[in-house]
């Protein structure tokens, strides 16, 4: 009951004209960057970080939340019409959706994706509303040792479990941790990893790294492969509405997708890929027409798209209740909290109740806005998709320049962004994941803080992480996440040999 009262208060704040405008701007921008290949919500939120100096925290987070949700909607449009999934979570949508579009059923594919996103997004936001306070209660009981071990799970999950290679993921995670160390140590005031440069005392700016890794790296990567051809954009023809049969086949998939997606996002293992694959698998198993899968089955779009959105809402749970970001966009939102001097975590719900509940309320509002933006206005986004690539990438680099140069009007920052961009291009070339670098860099300093607090409490005894039962079980989960996949592979291999 108390939750409902708090949520009502949140709606009161979120429904003021100014905040509605921020929510709409966020949703609009989010859909646009979701539709455009090469840029995504993480880059957009990073570019918008300067807004934290201009507007109150509530308005900024309503804007960021709109961008975050909007990009999920926009991303599905690109996968369906262009077959280039903007992010790994929409690979599955591309699989079936593009096949539907090829058979002239782009409209229903887009509709089931948008309505499914709305249904799942709303269910997941409701789950967030009612579970978050429970998690907060539990989280308040955790000490620094438990927090550190929980962060270890998040680190392992984003680097070793998701992505194609645990070695490449972990290498990038440690690189991110190293980047996070640069600057003055907050506890002792000693400069670390600064090479004696004054410019590095404040640490490396998140915006510069994010813009370099996303905008510059992506552009250079595509330029390097330019002569190997372009994608084909399928036309949007016929009705965009679902037939009675489409609807009958979709609605259960939406609900199942939401149920699969939210828990995956909410546990600090994060990632929207796994639930979409899982949902696809479930839908194919349950379908009465499994033969249609791979040739444009509508359930194969409806389920994974719902799972994708539900897990996006789920990611906000560890982010808001524990201060643990498990996606790149959430990590950059965390650095926005820091720029307001707010530390996300269980105390956020006590100290900043109005901010949290307005943000959650704006998620419900944003979902409704996005449904309108993405169904009747779909033609607009198809036109956005038609922006020719030469001009699109020219524009992306111009905006990237603002992101880096705007920090301090320093050409050195620009050079750092270029260097990060070249490095990121090589990462893409050799299939190194980007998320561990960004999450390691932003979450690393917080992990170090918990680590040192725990060690101080235990008077320098490192076994504290293993002797405290909750902390030990978190570490055991982390170890299992690293060790299980290779062990299972080895077992399967030996069985095949036998």
């Amino acid at each position, binding site marked *: 009951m108390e939750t409902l009262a708090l949520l009502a208060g949140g709606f009161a704040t979120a429904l003021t004209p100014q905040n509605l405008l921020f929510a709409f701007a966020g949703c609009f921008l989010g859909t646009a960057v979701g539709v455009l290949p090469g840029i995504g919500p993480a880059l957009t939120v990073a570019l918008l970080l300067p807004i934290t100096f201009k507007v109150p925290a509530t308005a900024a987070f309503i804007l960021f939340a709109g961008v975050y949700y909007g990009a999920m909607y926009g991303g599905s449009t690109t996968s369906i019409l262009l077959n280039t999934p903007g992010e790994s979570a929409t690979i599955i949508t591309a699989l079936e959706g593009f096949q539907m579009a090829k058979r002239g059923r782009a409209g229903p594919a887009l509709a089931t994706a948008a309505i499914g996103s709305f249904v799942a997004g709303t269910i997941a936001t409701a789950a967030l509303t009612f579970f978050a306070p429970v998690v907060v209660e539990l989280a308040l009981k955790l000490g620094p040792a438990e927090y550190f071990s929980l962060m270890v799970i998040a680190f392992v999950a984003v680097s070793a479990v998701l992505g*194609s290679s645990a070695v490449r993921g972990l290498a990038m995670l*440690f690189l991110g941790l190293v980047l996070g160390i640069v600057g003055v140590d907050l506890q002792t005031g*000693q400069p670390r990893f600064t090479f004696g440069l004054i410019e590095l005392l404040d640490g490396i700016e998140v915006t510069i790294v994010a813009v370099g890794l996303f905008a510059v790296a992506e552009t250079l990567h595509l330029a390097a492969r330019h002569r190997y051809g372009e994608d084909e954009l399928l036309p949007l023809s016929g009705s965009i509405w679902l037939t009675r049969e489409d609807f009958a086949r979709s609605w259960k998939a939406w609900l199942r997708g939401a149920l699969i997606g939210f828990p995956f996002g909410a546990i600090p293992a994060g990632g929207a890929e796994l639930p979409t694959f899982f949902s696809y698998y479930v839908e194919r198993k349950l379908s009465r027409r499994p033969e249609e899968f791979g040739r444009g089955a509508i359930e194969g779009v409806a389920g994974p798209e719902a799972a994708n959105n539900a897990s996006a809402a789920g990611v906000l749970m560890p982010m808001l209740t524990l201060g643990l970001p498990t996606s790149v966009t959430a990590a950059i939102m965390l650095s926005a909290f820091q720029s307001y001097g707010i530390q996300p975590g269980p105390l956020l719900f006590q100290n900043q109740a109005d901010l949290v509940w307005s943000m959650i309320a704006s998620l419900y509002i944003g979902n409704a806005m996005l449904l309108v933006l993405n169904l009747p206005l779909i033609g607009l986004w198809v036109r956005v998709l038609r922006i*020719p690539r030469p001009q699109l990438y020219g524009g992306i680099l*111009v905006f990237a320049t603002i992101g880096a140069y705007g920090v301090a009007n320093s050409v050195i920052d620009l050079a750092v962004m*270029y260097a990060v961009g070249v490095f990121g291009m090589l990462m893409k070339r*050799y299939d190194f994941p980007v998320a561990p670098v960004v999450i390691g860099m932003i979450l690393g300093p917080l992990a170090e803080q918990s680590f040192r607090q725990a060690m101080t409490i235990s008077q320098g005894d490192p076994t504290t992480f293993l002797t405290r039962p909750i902390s030990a079980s978190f570490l055991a989960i982390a170890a299992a996440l690293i060790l299980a996949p290779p062990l299972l592979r080895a077992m399967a291999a030996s069985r095949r040999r036998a």
Partner: protein
Amino acid sequence: MRARPRRDELAFALLLVALALLSLWQTLAIPVSPIYARVGPTAFPWIASVGLLVFSVVLLWQALRGGFPGVDRQKAADWRSLGWVGAGLAANAVLITTLGFVFAAIALFACTARGFGSQRPLRDALIGALVGLAAFLGFARLLGVNIGAGVLEGLL
């Protein structure tokens, strides 16, 4: 098994090893006061640096053994296209401190578009000017980002 090492992957792995060594060197350079001897400012940097070193050495080993697992041999890069984008980025850095952001944006936009196959440099320059101006006004006025003063920006 692929036995021949791929030179480009080897070079990338070596770059990572070099970064790890750099980070170890900087860890050793952190002065440690005796008060914090146990959980001082160096504990975490040690973990991060050694972790990076361990995994980059594994990557180096993989590269020597025939390549990173699951990564296909890369096609040759399109140097012409990359060259144009690189030239745009360089011009951007030079012009932004002299003529200002909008002129830098024109050069960057036109060169990048050229790199991606556009054949109409004048039209691209014009679009670049519009994008640059819009971005400048949007970020400078709405978000309060200071993008420096240039020839054109001073007039606005």
